[in-house]
């Protein structure tokens, strides 16, 4: 998957991978009942900076990408109350005053939406100055996270 990309699948042989998240957020969802899962790699918190771009590519923004990811999973038979939700990314530069901190805003946008829509997060690894890659196995729901320079493990 690329930056500002969304993919869903019900094929148990598929592994969705999103590389090198930086300050972007990788959101992985999976329904164990029907073994449907999906991943979103969004870049920015809020589509108000460009409605036109959000229309062309909803996966660019949290506020348009997150609903699109859930809807795409529902189409394949997933149900919200069964879905296991995991989040990674949102890293930041070394910048105490937060002038550059888009990662934090990306995460805050997701939290706000989840709180409003009563979505629980099962696991997350957010912030810091590290770069993350995540892989979602559609057959098992396992989410592997690799942190550059530090190795990988289950999230």
């Amino acid at each position, binding site marked *: 998957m690329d*930056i*500002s990309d969304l993919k869903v699948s019900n094929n148990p042989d598929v592994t969705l991978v999103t*590389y*090198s*998240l*930086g*300050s*972007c957020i990788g959101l992985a969802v999976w329904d164990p009942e029907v073994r449907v899962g999906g991943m979103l790699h969004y*870049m*920015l*918190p809020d589509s108000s*900076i*460009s409605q036109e*771009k959000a229309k062309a*590519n909803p996966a*660019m923004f949290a506020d348009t990408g997150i609903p699109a990811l859930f809807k795409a999973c529902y189409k394949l038979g997933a149900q919200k109350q069964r879905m296991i939700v995991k989040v990674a990314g949102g*890293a*930041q*530069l*070394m*910048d105490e*005053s937060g*002038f*550059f*901190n*888009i*990662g934090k*805003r990306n995460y805050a946008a997701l939290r706000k939406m989840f709180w409003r829509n009563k979505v629980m997060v099962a696991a997350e690894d957010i912030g*810091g*100055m*590290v*770069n993350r890659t995540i892989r979602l196995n559609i057959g098992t729901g396992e989410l592997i996270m690799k942190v*550059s*320079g530090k190795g990988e493990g289950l999230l």
Partner: protein
Amino acid sequence: MDIESILKDLEQLPPFPTVVAQALTLLDSPDSSAMDVVKVVQYDQAITANVLKVCNSAYFGLPGKVSSLREAVIRLGNKQLKEIILTGTVVKYYKNAMEGYALSKHDLWKHAISTAIISRIISKRFPGVDEGAVFTAGLLHDVGKTILDSVVDEYFNQMFALVGEKGYSFTEAEQEVLGLDHAEIGARMGELWGFPKEIVHAIRFHHAPPEGDESDLVTQVVYLGNVICLMLGIGVGRQGLHVRGRDEILEQHGMDINDLQVIMAGFLDEYQKVQDIIDLG
């Protein structure tokens, strides 16, 4: 491997292709014609082939396929032609995977071309900045990594301890452990290749634009282009985002986090068009 042998290796650095240097000079000269450029470049087949591939990428957006150097020269302006020739030339320095920085094949090239494009987008907000210099410095800013990689690999644990425990940026850790950072090595390469001073300066200070020097626009733009590119996760490797955020550069130019977002969104449109340029790497 240590820094002394790296500096010795640098003495053996292959020269920047003469034909390219000549072509770039010709493109800057008001007395030369486009055909003079063709005459110089056409004998280097590798460069000609790359130039045509770059011409035909979606990014440069020429309608129809450009099939000869002559046609490229006729259809493109000098400014664009310069960018294309440089892009087609510089790619060869970025060809290898780098163990030390944990960058796979293509990663550093992707980072270089993306930084050049982001920097060009940013330069629209810096009136008076030389866009061509910004693009070139963006392409070359990390070229020192290609030389420093093997030592970084060897001393990585020592460097990473400084980053993790003492709050060093990755570049500061390079300076402390190796005595020199990748930006300095890159600047020396630029000097050996005879690049203009402002480009060498931007390569040298792309992590730390001199404070109080508001006139140094090329360096500031490339600094911002590089950090935005890293935030987007393009060619980051294991240095991660251990790079200093310099708030005052945004402030000096009346920019804030919303401007960064607009730049990122604008870049993404371009990014989708550079895939075939990235594939050259």
